Every structure is written in C-alpha cells, then in structure tokens.
C-alpha cells in the first residue's frame, strides 16, 4: 500500500488493519509519535490526517490510504506547527515530554481550524493526557498563540 506521510510517498506492506501508529513507528522508523495506551485514551499517538487530529493507535492503515498524514517529525515545516513548537519552548511546556508530540499535534490541528480559539474551544480540543500535569503550561501556550495570531513569535 502507498502512504503519504510528511509529503513523502512510502510503500508499506503491513496488513490493512494494522494501526497507523505501528506503521509509523516500526515499519517507517519514525519514533516521535508515541504509544501510550492503544485505546485512544491518552492522545500520545496523535497525528494529522488531512490537517485533522487523529489518534493513530486506533486508526487502521487501510483507512488512511491516499490521505495526507503529518507526524510530529514534519510539524515544524508547517507554519502553524512551527509557531506551536516555538510557543511550547517559550512557555517551557514539556516535563518528561512523552505526551508532548501529541499535544503539539493537537494544538496545531486546533489552530489550523480555529485561528483564535476561545477558552472553551481550547478546553474542547486539548484533551490529551499528561501525567506530569503540564496542563496549565499547555493552556498558556495555546492562548498565547491565539491572541497573537498573525504575529511572529
């Protein structure tokens, strides 16, 4: 099967029901996307599919054929993703960092669709778990991005 990931074309040979997460991590060797629960509970595996956030641990390979997948590895190539990463650094968001690939992807998806999200919209979109409890820093970073839309960080 042909897969479009980070603007590149990959031939993959896993079964069609294999979760996208394991294609990305094992077959393609990109380990920035994380395994946390395998049940779409934690969001550490979040990737973009056609610009929307998807939990790759429960996304079968054959459901994403022909669609544009973006992983954390290519997020800085996206102008919004780049600003999200800069905000994450500015607000010193990560602690252990394990969930942060997914958090950055989720924030990027939110800002792509809603450039100036309200507090409620941020709360509705930023639902990934973080055991280190970086939630306040995440919220501050996303709010910063929403209020500075159009400016350069």
């Amino acid at each position, binding site marked *: 099967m042909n897969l479009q990931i980070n603007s590149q074309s990959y031939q993959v040979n*896993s*079964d069609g029901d*294999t*979760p996208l997460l*394991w294609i990305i*991590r*094992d*077959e393609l*060797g*990109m*380990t*920035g*996307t*994380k*395994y*946390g*629960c*395998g*049940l779409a*509970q*934690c969001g*550490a595996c979040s990737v973009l599919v056609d610009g929307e956030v998807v939990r790759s641990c429960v996304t079968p390979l054959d459901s994403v054929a022909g669609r544009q997948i973006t*992983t*954390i*590895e290519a*997020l*800085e190539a996206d102008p919004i993703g780049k600003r999200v*990463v800069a905000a*994450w*650094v500015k607000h*010193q*968001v*990560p*602690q*252990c*960092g*394990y*969930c*942060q*690939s997914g958090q*950055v992807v989720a924030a990027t998806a939110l800002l792509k669709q809603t450039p100036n999200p309200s507090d409620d919209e941020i*709360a509705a979109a*930023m*639902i*990934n*778990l*973080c*055991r*280190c*409890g*970086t*939630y*306040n*820093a*995440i*919220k501050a970073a996303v709010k910063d991005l929403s209020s500075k839309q159009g400016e350069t960080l």
Partner: protein
Amino acid sequence: MTETTRNLVPDDEFPIGSPVNISRRHFLLTSAGAAAGAFVLGFGVPVGQARAQQAASPMPPGTRVPAFLEIRPDSSIRFMSPFVEGGQGVFTAMAQIVGEELDADPKTFVVENAPAGGDYLVINGKMRITGGSMSGRTSYETMRKLGPLARNMLLQAAAKRLNAPITELTTEPGRVIHAASGRSLAYGEVAAEALDLPVPAPESVSLRDPSKFRWIGKPVERLDMHDKSTGKAVYAIDCKVDGMLHAAVQHAPRLGLTIGKIRNEEQLKAMPGVHSVHSLSGAVAVVAERWWNAKRAAEAAQVDWREPGSDADPALRHMPADFSTAAFSDKLANEPGSGKEAENVGDVTKAFDAAKTVVSATYKSQYLHHAQLEPPSTLARFNPDGSLEVWLPNQAPEQFQADIAKLTGLDPSKVTLHSPILGGFFGRHFLYPSANPYPQAIQLAKEVGRPVKLIWSREEEFLRDPMRPMAAVRFRGALDASGMHRIAQIYVKNPTTLAYWRSVGNSMNDFFYETFLDELADKGGQDPYELRMKLLQKNERLSNLLKAVGDLSGGWKRGPFTADDGSKRARGVAMASPFGSHTAAIAEVSIRNGQVVVHDVWEAIDPGSIVNPAIIEAQINSATALGMSQVLMEEAVYQNGEPTARNYDLYPILPPDRMARVHVRIIESGAEMGGIGEPGLPAIPPAVANAVSTLTGKRIRSMPLSNYTFES
C-alpha cells in the same frame, strides 16, 4: 538509535586515581560529535590491571572530572549526569550547577545520563538513584566542585598557547581571556591541549561566591524543550538496533501462577509476522518482526495457568484468587490490636485522661498506579564477544546492572546499561521483582539469537505495575491536648507488589494527619488555619510558610462562600514537610454535577535554597496535578485476584479539564537545600479534602473523592 555515544567506562575501568589521557594514547572517540582534538578526558580505555590498582587508590565518587565532562571543539560541553532526566529538569539543573563553576553557559551543555559506574555514586558518596527528591540537594556541592577543575586545565593550556602567565588569565562564559593583550580563546580551541594536562588537585581550586551566581538560582531555560516539542527526544521505547526483533507478552492473570500448556501455540506461530512463541516465568511471549504482530499473537494465546506449587518463587508475592481491595481495606481497618505507637508527644495517657472529648476516626488510602505515559520496555542485545547491552528505563543504573549480571551470570563489566530519558517515572522504574521487562527481554534475546525489544502493552503494565500501598489508619485525638496520638501502626503484608510512588509514604500519611487535624479542629470549634498558626507559633520557618500561602491566596478565607459565578465554594489548608523541604497549600473547591471541582491551588514551598525557580514552579504544578489526581479519582481496584482496570479507560488519571489553576510562592529561607520533585504533592490531597469537608459538611476520611456522592 544504534549504539552511538556511550563510550564512557565505569569507574573500575580506570587504572589509577588520575584520569586516562586518551589523546596522548591516540585513542579517539568514535562517538557522534566527538571529533579528533576534542577535550576528552579518560573515556573508554579498558586497562588490564584496572581493578586491583583502582582499589588501592580510589577517588571518591563525583570527583573524577573526566568521567563527567567532555569539551568539544565547538566549545559545547557534554556532561554525564549521575541522575536521569524524567521531566523533573535535573539535566538542566546539573548544567546550571556545573556551568556556574566551569564558567560556561548552561545553554552550551549537552547532558546525558551517565552509564553505570562507581564515579556516579554521588549520593552520600555511596549510592546512585534518581528518587527521593535527592538529586540536587545531595550532589550540589560535589557537582559544583567539578567545574573549576576543568576550568583550571583550560587556563593552563591557554597560558601556554598565549605565552602569558596563568595569573593574568580570566574566563568569561566559554572563553579564556587575556585582558593585557586583548586576546582570547574559546574553550573548544584549547581543549585539545588542555587534555594533555593532569587534573589538578581538588583543593587547589576555589568556588564562586554565591552572591555572584549567574545561573544557579535563576530561571534558566530547560535544555530539552525543543527536542521534546518536536518528537526528537529518545526514550527507551524508541531505541532500536540493527537486526532487532520485537516482542510482546501476556502475563499470568495473577502473579505467581506458572505457565502450563499453550493450547493454541501452533495457531499463534502461524499468525502474520510471528517469529516464535516462548514460555517464560509467569508469562507467554511472542517474538515477531513488528511489535503489533507480536502483541496480537500474545493477546490471542490460550494458556493453562497453574497455581504455584513447591516450585513457587519465594521472591514473589503470589496473588490469591480471592483477593479483593474492598475486603482488604476492611481487614486493615479492623485489624485487632492497639498497634505500635509511632509517635507520641508529651504525656499522652494523662492528656487523654484529662480530655473533655476524645475523637476517634479511621482514615483510608487506596492503591495507586504510576500510570506514567511511557509503557515499560527493554531492548537486549548479546554481542559477539559475549557481552550484553541493555536499553531500559531505570532510576538506578548500578542496581540494574548488578541484577542483570546476577541473572545472566555475566561479570558486571560485560553488562552495558543504556539508560535513556524517562517518559515519566514517579517511582515506577526501580528494581521491583516481577515488575520490569528486562529479565524477559534478555531471555528472549538469548533464545532467538538476535536483539529483541520487548514492550509491555498498557494492559500488561497495569497488570504488573507495583502499586502505592493502601492503608487504614485509626486515629485517636484528645481535645485540649496539644499532642496528637497515632495509635495504629500494624504491619499487614499486602498480597500485591508494592512500590514507591511520587512522595512515597508522604503521599498518604500527610493526607491522614492533615485531614484528622482538621477533624480535631472542627470538633474543638477552631479554625483549621488559625489552629495551625497557633501550633506553629514557636516555629518561625513554618509560621512564615503558612503565612505566605495565606497571603498568596489573598488572605485565609475558609468559607463556605459564594463565588462571583454563583457557585458555593470553600477552601482547605494543609502542610507537609517531606524530603527536606516544607510546603503549605490552600485549595478552593466547589461541587458541580456531583463532582468536586478544584478551582485554584496556592502552594508555598520552602526548599531552603534553590537552583532553578522556573523548574520549581513547574514541579509544583506537576505535583499538584498528581496530588489532585490521587484525591479526586485514582484507585486501583482488585476483584478475584485481578485488577479491574487495565488501561486509562477504567483507571482515569487527571484530565486537563479538571486541572486547577496553580499559584506558587518559593521561599528561600537559606536553610539546607531540600527536595523539589516530590515535596509539592503531599499537602494537596488533604487541602482538597479539607475544603470539601468544609463545603459539604461531610467529613472526608478516604481517597478518592469519586467514591463519595455529593449534591451540587
């Protein structure tokens, strides 16, 4: 990540008390980023007589500069940290401490977890763990002293190059300066020559005056933020080597059961991608080309598990088939006997005899999972020379190395441990029997003759995660007496495997003490904040702390009161003194849809003296989140000997929408440096519970609050 950078060797590979000079011996590192000419002191030279000679003249841990520092041609500094980074910011704190004295900006540091070795046993000169909030406070002086030794060598080399007396040379961050001639050299420019010099005697160099610190005590930015925001940070679960196979396991449903027949073994072997099926101690393993295939087959295994017989492993706590947490909790609460007296202040008997009112109550805590986001894994590889390399999350490299040596019969020098950064730990990655995947991974690598990476699925992790103990405490308090008398300390062996959990015993003991104190205050008609103030009147440090948190919250206001949004709210206060630091917290709560909402948490911490206030603030946020998670919703429940929750769906951890705003005040009282990672936690559960008791009039004596019914 193939094996790239770990060429440091343990202490006992060094021949004598002085560093091996690699450059002079024409040994150059092949490690990434260490080009020829790098200031590499003593890396990676095995010497035959090493052990005997080293024993004759050992250097104290933490003093052998070369085991810790490498200065590269571009003046970047590779530092081998005795403590592993798992989110608590220790890599950055170490760079601040060493950089301050080396005169090098912490930004120029590249920090890694040091390999196993005697040089890194810097906790009291004999131990190395990352835990107990000990990293900064136990190694602070030792780590400071490393900097000036290397700086002195750089000065000597620069003096020669510039043909100037060393007394005329100074440094500024990353550079040696000769003011008289207006010339200067970057550290990296003289590194090659500096490494031809002997390491000076520790007593020949001096430390900076703390009043002139540039980085220690400042909110220096963390070194790992960009890597961790872009997926570049590498955890154990991400490690890979050439020719590696993947493995997954299905554990026996109860610890102690032994493996019998795998009824569908042939079927499993025929599943896609499966390489082989293996019977392990208390588990079946499947090795495959890819982990997903291994996991599917392991899950599908139909195994005859057997009750332990005479062959039972005495090191394991066998889980009985009828074990339930509900029944165990009742058993603990009703354990006969008056218990071992844990703490008595004053004449307790007299106090109780004279008391107008005696208050007795039983308080309870629950089992907790670590629930760190990174599931445990181990990558094991046997090398052609018979040595073994293991990549695994751990908080104690030397202990794991020793255990693996014992397990395999290999000499410890043949066991190379790679300890990547941790995707959360909270006490999860110590040496717990049956709770770590490395014995399985090593056995599998041996059996298949190829490197194997074993990942425990979340479900297998929650089945074998050792837990924070549950407890029941019977209190008796005498009003009119200033002392509190804890009567029940009865040891009851838990059928489960137990573990350290962030803030260890304090995570529940301070809940017990501080909520019972509020109960006593209420019975005596006293305000809980004022009562604490009164009890602490002779303790200036704690009085200041309690006053500080009161001020931070805008003045103590217990409630119940009506907030601007119309909700009825109340505040609770609690204090704790864990790990050498002191904390006081106030929480404001309301009830919405029958659930407790924690709106704000104010926490003051007095760690004596500090390294990085920004990291402290982040750690207080983090500890608050975990404390709230514990008191609001977490509980590992067992029925019929098995956990009812095997993933986050049935074992919820604090989600973002239940996080409180957190306000932090750091008090530098100047006392001895205390811990940071854990101290923020213990005051949170009782502060929340006390607020809920005040708000609802219902006395909270157990966690989690999700077991109570509240009316909005």
